[in-house]
């Protein structure tokens, strides 16, 4: 770890990026995700500009007589069980599939960070109360918790989001707490206290920035998990409502046609798989890149 003056100085982000870049697989995952985000954004823009015309005429437009038609020049991914264009639905679904997972995880990350850092920093009774509560949530399998919550609140986009978010909170709280615990005892925290820094400052300026690494990784993987959970809920009939295109519900409603029109199950299935694969390899790449022990 001796870096001479001559060597180019890098920020931590740049350092991470340099190491991340080396991992071609993770890079590929990231490119896939960026592409998906671009698709999602452009379909949103298209809907705004055309006042949903494309959406109404291509995405949800049915043509029952042509149902289950296989891929052709006119319809690259074929038509689904209602004769809707699978390609268009796939594209329009990106925003739900990707963003719902992301939003749900963002929610649980925020809650998890607050709970986890309070528990980890203050310890003792506070820690005990918060973590016992997390234990309670953790003791209920997350899929089950989500199912019960959606069943209770009713199936709607927001409710699915809330359900998934709640079921992921304990994971994040634990991750944050664990890294707070390790960082809390480091000397630079003590140094800050010796300067008279407040708890608030210590948590937000010292502890949290240093526990970002596991959190970022956990979130990336969490989004992948959330997308799968949403698909699972769809399978149980508790996912996104029709005719909104969403990969999980496309897949689960197409599953009975798996042998008649392979394309309508395989395509959304692959969509989910590739997205999750991309998230996973990117998460792993980030983990390697952020792990200080793997430096150089």
């Amino acid at each position, binding site marked *: 770890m001796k870096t001479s003056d001559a060597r180019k100085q890098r920020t931590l982000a740049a350092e991470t990026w340099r190491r991340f870049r*080396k*991992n*071609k*697989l993770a890079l590929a995952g990231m490119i896939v995700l960026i592409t998906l985000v671009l698709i999602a954004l452009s379909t949103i823009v298209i809907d705004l500009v055309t006042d949903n015309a494309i959406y109404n005429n291509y995405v949800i437009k049915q043509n029952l007589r042509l149902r289950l038609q296989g891929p052709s020049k006119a319809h690259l991914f074929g038509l689904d069980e209602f004769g809707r264009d699978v390609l268009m639905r796939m594209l329009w679904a990106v925003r739900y599939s990707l963003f719902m997972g992301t939003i749900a995880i963002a929610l649980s990350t925020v809650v998890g960070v607050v709970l986890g850092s309070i528990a980890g920093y203050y310890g003792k009774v506070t820690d005990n109360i918060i973590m*016992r*509560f997390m*234990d*309670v*949530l*953790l*003791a*209920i*399998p*997350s*899929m*089950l918790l989500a*199912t*019960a*919550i959606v*069943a*209770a*609140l*009713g199936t709607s986009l927001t409710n699915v989001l809330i359900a998934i978010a709640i079921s992921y909170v304990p994971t994040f709280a*634990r991750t944050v*707490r*664990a890294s707070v*615990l*390790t960082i809390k005892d480091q000397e630079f925290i003590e140094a800050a206290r010796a300067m008279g820094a407040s708890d608030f400052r210590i948590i937000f300026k010292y502890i949290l920035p240093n526990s970002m690494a596991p959190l970022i990784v956990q979130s990336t993987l969490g989004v*992948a998990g959330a997308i*799968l959970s949403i*698909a*699972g809920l769809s*399978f*149980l*009939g508790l996912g996104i409502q029709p005719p909104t295109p969403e990969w*999980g519900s496309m*897949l*689960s409603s197409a*599953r009975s046609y*798996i*042998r008649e029109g392979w394309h309508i*199950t395989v395509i959304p*299935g692959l969509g*989910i*798989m*590739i*997205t*999750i*694969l991309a998230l*996973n*390899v990117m998460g*792993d790449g980030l*983990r390697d890149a952020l*792990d200080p*022990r*793997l430096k150089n």
Partner: protein
Amino acid sequence: MGKYIVRRLLMMIPVLLGVTFIVFFIMSLTPGDPAAIILGDQASAESLAQKRIELGLDKPLLVRYASYMGSLFRGDLGVSYRNQLSVAEQVWDKFPNTALLAIAGILVALLIGIPVGILSAKKQYTFMDNSSMVLSLVGVSMPNFWLGLLLSLLFALKLGWLPSQGMGSGFFGLLRSLVLPAITLGTGVAATVVRMTRSSMLEVIRQDYISTARAKGITEKQITNKHMLKNALIPIVTAVGLQFGHLLGGAMLTETIFSWPGLGRLMVDSITSKDIPMVLGAVIFMAVMFSFVNLLVDILYAFLDPRIKSQYKGRKATIRKEVTA
């Protein structure tokens, strides 16, 4: 150690209390009238009202919760709304099936996860590393139910090797029927195991004691098995323990696909039919199971790691676990 186990068992009580409260609360929020569920859609208004009183649904939520907890402490989990049978019996009946499936799933995960993880770590950043990582991730990236369908299409229908559904009888029948659901369930966890194995192997590989072992002149195989793996296993065990919860959740889908008569399916059915006593009973059972598995993991932990054994008298062990988790 004995004292520690007792302490842990006692700690489970508040957790289970919390679990019952949360589930009771959520389930009571669910729209739908249990009386109507029991009597069906053609029941008369009087009999519905009668049933509601019978079930105590006319009382406030907290009173109902208290009376539920009251009978719970007497060991009575109540009767199911749907079929009016003892919840405890039904849950107890399904439990071994789910446990079997879960254990088989874990085994699949370990069988895939540990070798791949080791390979991947020893050949970090090579083609081998990347391809084995991707392959193991493909499994976890597929929605569970989709993978199940594809597997049964291939192995049951196309190849006719394995049964497509149900729980076989006899040892081989059972084993055969277990394969597909276990793979479906296990692949999801496998990726976590691969990851965990890989990173903990990578960590161990860098340790000084591995250098010491090399300097002794023992073979690479001995180094891997005796020095690396045994140390790397410790965090893996924790990870697997925590995955158990996911596994139980995954069982809800897998059991439905493969008509496996387990707790997961019981749970799905009960949730959708608002069978509150049944859901509560099953969840409590799952939570107990989950807590026991974690306790088991901690004990196993002590066997794998002599350092922990001496710490077991108290708090440090739990802190350690949190940190590595």
